């Protein structure tokens, strides 16, 4: 079929199965937007900033497991997507961004609104394209979606010059893509799988360390099967929240800098670390030399470059987590392996009882942790997606929520992008219209993309924002308190500026303020039941810290704050220890 490039682009989106575009137009993008105007199967959402568009696509992909498209204009439109692309890249989230570009004859002349967006995004995309030949458009788009959503997922950018989107081409959606240099390994090596199964069968103190790869691969059922079969406790990273039901007795919590102490103790004491879809991030490992230093390590990941990058591995398995875990389980069943972790679980449960998360409750002041707990309790019986911003609000959300369903947790991990939560929640709501979508926000972060409140109103996306309004860039303030002698340089906000309730009203949102703990449930309940978007401004205790905390660069079993307790070696109960060691 003959059509112009812009039309072909939209046709290709339909053929790729894309059902939503987050797009912001501009001069050279008009041929594409004009074609989009006619599409009946692709929903087009206008954000209020291109960064918002990318985070919306990101949030959508996190809850749906497949990419949405972003379309922006050249120059500033394209450069405004950079943070969102980098965010998706760090967290391995599939996304395809189309940037319009000045016409090919003027590329390189510093034409009006020209920017070298393919050059700019080389280090933050899985791959990118500058389409110079209009005839290649369908093929490039097919490749872009294939690359974005297979192997280790990630963002792909396609730069489309104005003359390309205006040129007439013969459109044909390719039946298959041909990428000789791109062949992800899905099946794990049989011998490695066997060896892993043998080690798991023998281990007395195994620990599963699960991350975003479990969710990307859709491997949660296999993870649960392995954990239950061999009675192995599970620590899930910030990216892995939801990979394992957090109300399960084998679920421990988040490892690392702000993980509960008992999780870090278990990591320090384990004799077999089974790492699945994780990358041994420094926020998890703390000082590498003492991280899981007594353990043999099995590392399952689809990206070979992650294996052995930070920590030496005994059994590397390159492959898709779902297939590899299923193969390990079937190997364990074949050999009729039985769990040997009873004593280990008693040690872990003992730590869990002695070192739970803890904060000072108050009848007068709204504690931020309390707000998260109440959000958790009030959403217990309905399908809910929790999004977060970045900072203390994010860490408390990690600590105090219980995510039970996969792909219902939306939080910026690797890049730690303030301003991610609201647009990501909006994107999640687009994908999951039946879910209650709550963004747990900080008063600093929410102001980074608050313009997207308009998008939620106009598009009838009833997201809820719960602001933990502490009047500070709280996480920065915490570090300044602990490591910079209380010198709060540039970290002081103002609790009453803006007035978040009025801000909500300005955008047509329901808004409430909570200044006293007794009013919290009522306000949250009304916000959650409201049929449109709502914001709850919780005036929380200003100088509360996130504890426990591993000092930057420290060993993860040496934590500040929380219930007093020393490093793990002193904490092991003598009797249980002997039993575990036999």
């Amino acid at each position, binding site marked *: 079929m003959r059509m112009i490039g812009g039309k072909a682009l939209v046709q290709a989106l339909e053929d790729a199965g894309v059902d939503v575009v987050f797009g912001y137009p501009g001069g050279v993008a008009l041929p594409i937007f004009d074609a989009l105007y006619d599409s009946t199967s692709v929903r087009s959402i206008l954000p209020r900033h291109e960064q918002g568009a990318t985070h919306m696509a990101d949030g959508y992909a996190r809850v749906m497991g497949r990419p949405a498209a972003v379309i922006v204009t050249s120059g500033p439109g394209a450069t405004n997507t950079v943070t969102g692309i980098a965010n998706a890249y760090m967290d391995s989230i599939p996304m395809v961004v189309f940037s319009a570009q000045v016409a090919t004859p003027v590329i390189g002349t510093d034409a009006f609104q020209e920017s070298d967006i*393919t*050059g700019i995004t*080389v280090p933050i995309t899985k*791959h990118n394209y500058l389409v110079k030949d209009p005839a290649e458009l369908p093929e490039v788009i097919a490749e872009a979606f294939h690359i974005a959503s297979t192997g280790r997922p990630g963002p792909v950018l396609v730069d489309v010059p104005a003359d390309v989107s205006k040129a007439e081409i013969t459109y044909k959606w390719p039946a298959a893509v041909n990428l000789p240099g791109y062949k992800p390994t899905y099946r794990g090596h049989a011998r490695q799988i066997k060896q892993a199964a043998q080690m798991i069968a023998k281990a007395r103190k195994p620990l599963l360390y699960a991350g975003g790869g479990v969710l990307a691969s859709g491997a949660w059922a296999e993870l649960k099967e392995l954990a239950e079969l061999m009675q192995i406790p599970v620590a899930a990273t910030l990216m892995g929240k939801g990979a394992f039901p957090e109300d399960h007795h084998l679920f421990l919590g988040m490892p690392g800098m702000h993980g509960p102490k008992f999780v870090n103790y278990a990591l320090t004491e384990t004799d077999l670390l089974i790492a699945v879809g994780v990358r041994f991030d420094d926020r998890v490992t703390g000082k590498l030399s003492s991280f899981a230093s007594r353990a043999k390590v099995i590392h399952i990941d689809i990206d070979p*470059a992650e294996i052995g*990058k930070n920590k030496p591995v005994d059994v590397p398995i390159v492959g898709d987590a779902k297939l590899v875990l299923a193969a390990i389980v079937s190997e364990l069943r074949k050999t009729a392996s039985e769990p040997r972790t009873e004593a280990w679980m008693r040690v872990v449960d003992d730590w869990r009882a002695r070192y739970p998360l803890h904060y000072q409750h108050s009848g007068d002041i709204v504690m931020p942790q309390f707000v998260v707990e109440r959000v958790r309790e009030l959403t217990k019986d309905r399908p809910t997606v929790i999004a977060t911003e970045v900072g203390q609000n994010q860490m408390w959300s990690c600590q105090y929520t219980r995510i039970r369903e996969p792909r219902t947790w939306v939080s910026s991990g690797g890049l730690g992008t303030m301003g991610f939560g609201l647009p990501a929640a909006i994107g999640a709501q687009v994908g999951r219209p039946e879910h209650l979508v709550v963004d747990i926000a900080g008063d600093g972060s929410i102001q980074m993309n608050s313009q997207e409140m308009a998008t939620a109103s106009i598009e009838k996306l009833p997201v809820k924002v719960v602001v933990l309004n502490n009047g500070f860039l709280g996480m920065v303030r915490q570090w300044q308190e602990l490591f910079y002698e209380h010198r709060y340089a540039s970290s002081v906000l103002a609790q009453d500026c803006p007035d978040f309730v009025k801000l909500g009203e300005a955008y047509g949102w329901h808004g409430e303020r909570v200044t006293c703990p007794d009013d919290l449930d009522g306000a949250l309940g009304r916000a959650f039941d409201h049929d449109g978007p709502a914001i709850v401004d919780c005036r929380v205790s200003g100088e509360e810290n996130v504890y426990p905390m591993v000092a930057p660069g420290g060993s993860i079993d040496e934590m500040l704050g929380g219930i007093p307790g020393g490093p793990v070696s002193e904490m092991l109960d003598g009797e249980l220890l002997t039993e575990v060691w036999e």
Partner: protein
Amino acid sequence: MAQHTLSVLVENKPGVLTRVTSLFARRGFNIDSLAVGVTEDPTLSRITIVVGGDDTPIEQVTKQLHKLINVIKIQDLDAGSMVDRELVLFKVSAPPDRRHEIIEIANVFRTKIVDVGKNSVTIEATGAADKLEAMEDLLRAYGIKELARTGKIALSRGLREGPA
């Protein structure tokens, strides 16, 4: 870590070299030399990269390179199993009275004089690194005015191939 010679087969498309060098820069890997050109198949180019320095984890380098969509194949060639060459142009200062000495050196090393100026001689030398270094040492005594090198290119030796 010792020096490694990576022979990287890539798609011959615009921007591929940028991706490769940008990856080295971003990951903090050092490039000692780099040479690139199209292969017997016009859709493919070969980039020969010499990486070195103790801080460069060669396994990470190759794994990260493999992730580039346009990279087809990577060989980590070792001294025993490759033939490698580099071409160097030396412009040596050569007043008429010393010109013959320099020509003599060029002959001993079986290299070519490619230009003779009023006060300089330009020598084209190819070979393995040790020969070129030895030559550079000798010529330095006369004063090297300018020097240009292509960077090392390499291929695996024939004995590596399977039956014809």
